């Protein structure tokens, strides 16, 4: 596909042309892809960047003196600059490439938390965390004797901020919360959380897996200490992500993994670490996917986050309205501020049965606990059916889903 410039007005048909996968059929029906909170589809620009890297300048980076190595290094580092600008980080050294949000959180857990926490300290997370923002901290509490405390969630799927303020005391050294919930769509009041936590000297990590694609991220304005991003949820490739960290914290942290690239000098007696960001990027990194991540961010910025958000908000509004007309449906997650995630249960119907019958009608949704089992327990349900929308989805597709849902429910009841 040619790199056509997009109109200033948001044109979903034009956007869709950039995503080759949307042309395919599933079970003989046009694909309706509503599992964007799990992963987004990739525009041709990203696919081209990925294959282009292997076709034209594949080389190991940072060390080689030859032209290919220089070009590959330049492309890899250009992504760092793009990410820095995308989330408005103060310095490029504050952008660390990881495999994704899970690794970003683990990196902070195994470096900052493992060396800074002791028995009696507390880590505060929320009741709507993905397992990746629960389990790493549990592992660290076992090592350090620190305690894990949980901000409860109310019936609308919003954090109970009164409880948060009660839980916040001098023992709390770290608050790690999800910016936007993958299961419910709730956008959390992270600014309030960050400011309050800082007042008592705690640092704050944000899981930006869902928020990065939908919201404008300005880490300096947020003043968060760490921010985690997954490329594949921002129309980029899988296997690459970002950890943003404030420079002073990153400087003070020990390395996460040892190996090549992350060292300055190695001897059997003593090894010294490379400077930021390389201290945290041991071994040959995921060069190809990092290079293609730039294409994804460029693509999102070219279309415009604001335009995308307006489109997605409208899809969410329409879907919520239409879903509520279905008999026996209960929306899970009715927060005032949401990203485009519609999660629901249907009375007397197992989510998995719905998922299977929707798939047979070409509609891809996610069913189950969405890796947030404690949250599902909070609502007393085994899981939900979740439709999550991206820039390329349409109201017509929502109509297809609603019809498919009605058909599925009729079959199941």
């Amino acid at each position, binding site marked *: 596909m040619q790199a056509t410039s997009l109109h200033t007005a948001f044109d979903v048909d034009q956007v869709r042309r950039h995503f080759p996968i949307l042309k395919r059929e599933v*079970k003989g029906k046009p694909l309706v892809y509503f599992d964007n909170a799990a992963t987004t589809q990739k525009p041709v620009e990203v696919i081209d960047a990925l294959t282009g890297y292997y076709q034209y300048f594949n080389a190991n980076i940072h060390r080689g003196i030859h032209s290919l190595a220089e070009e590959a290094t330049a492309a890899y580092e250009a992504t760092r600059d793009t990410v820095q600008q995308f989330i408005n980080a103060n310095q490029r050294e504050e952008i660390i490439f990881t495999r994704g949000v899970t690794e970003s959180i683990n990196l902070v857990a195994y470096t900052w938390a493992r060396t800074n926490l002791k028995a009696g300290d507390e880590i505060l997370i929320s009741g709507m965390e993905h397992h990746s923002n629960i389990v790493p901290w549990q592992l660290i509490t076992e090592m350090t004797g620190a305690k894990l405390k949980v901000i409860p969630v109310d019936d609308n799927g919003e954090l109970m901020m009164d409880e948060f303020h009660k839980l916040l005391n001098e023992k709390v050294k770290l608050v790690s919360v999800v910016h936007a919930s993958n299961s419910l769509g709730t956008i959390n009041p992270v600014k309030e959380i960050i400011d309050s936590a800082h007042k008592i000297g705690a640092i704050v990590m944000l899981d930006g897996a869902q928020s990065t694609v939908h919201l404008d991220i300005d880490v300096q304005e947020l003043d968060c200490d760490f921010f985690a991003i997954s490329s594949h949820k921002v129309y980029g490739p899988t296997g690459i992500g970002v950890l943003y960290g404030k420079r002073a914290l990153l400087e003070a942290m020990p390395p996460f993994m040892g190996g090549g690239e992350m060292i300055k000098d190695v001897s059997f007696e003593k090894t010294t670490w490379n400077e930021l960001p390389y201290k945290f990027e041991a071994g040959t990194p995921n060069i190809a996917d990092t290079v293609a991540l730039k294409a994804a961010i460029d693509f999102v910025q070219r279309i415009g986050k604001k335009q995308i958000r307006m489109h997605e908000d409208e899809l969410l509004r329409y879907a919520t309205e239409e879903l509520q007309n279905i008999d026996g449906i209960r929306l899970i997650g009715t927060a005032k501020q949401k990203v485009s995630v519609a999660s629901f249960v249907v009375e007397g119907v*197992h*989510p*998995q*049965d719905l*998922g*299977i*019958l929707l798939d*047979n009608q070409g509609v891809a949704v996610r*069913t*189950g*606990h969405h890796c947030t089992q404690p949250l599902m327990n909070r609502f007393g349900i*085994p*899981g939900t059916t979740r439709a999550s929308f991206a820039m390329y989805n349409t109201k017509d597709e929502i109509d297809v889903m609603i019809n498919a849902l009605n*058909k599925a429910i009729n*079959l*199941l009841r």
Partner: protein
Amino acid sequence: MKSIVEIEEEIVEDFSLFDSWDEKYEYIIDMGKKLKPLEDEHKKEENKIKGCQSTVWMVSELKDGKIYYRAESDAVIVKGLVSLLIRVLSGHAPTEIINAKLDFIDKIGMKQHLAQTRSNGLLSMVKQMKLDATVYLAQQASKN
């Protein structure tokens, strides 16, 4: 008594009457609804075959050299598929069950439900049914 293969063929023939996916699923859902519920006493942890999304409980017993299975699931489509598996395997000798290829699942277009990604416990169910058969076979062998 029909052999496992004969029952499989019967099911394949039943399904060949359906023209569309929804007729197939309507039938499976109906089978699921009709499956005799498992008594609550059997719905305990040790009888659980856990998938990522749905749960299957299964018990088996050996009577006169034949294995009889009973099972239930919290999801109705899985329950229907479980019901088909019971129809095929229950009442047969351990060796016949262990060697069953269960090609009918593919032939009736339900192979995807055995795929790893489905994580719905059905694949684990088949494995557990065969494992039970292996255990009974070993028990029989040790008695002889």
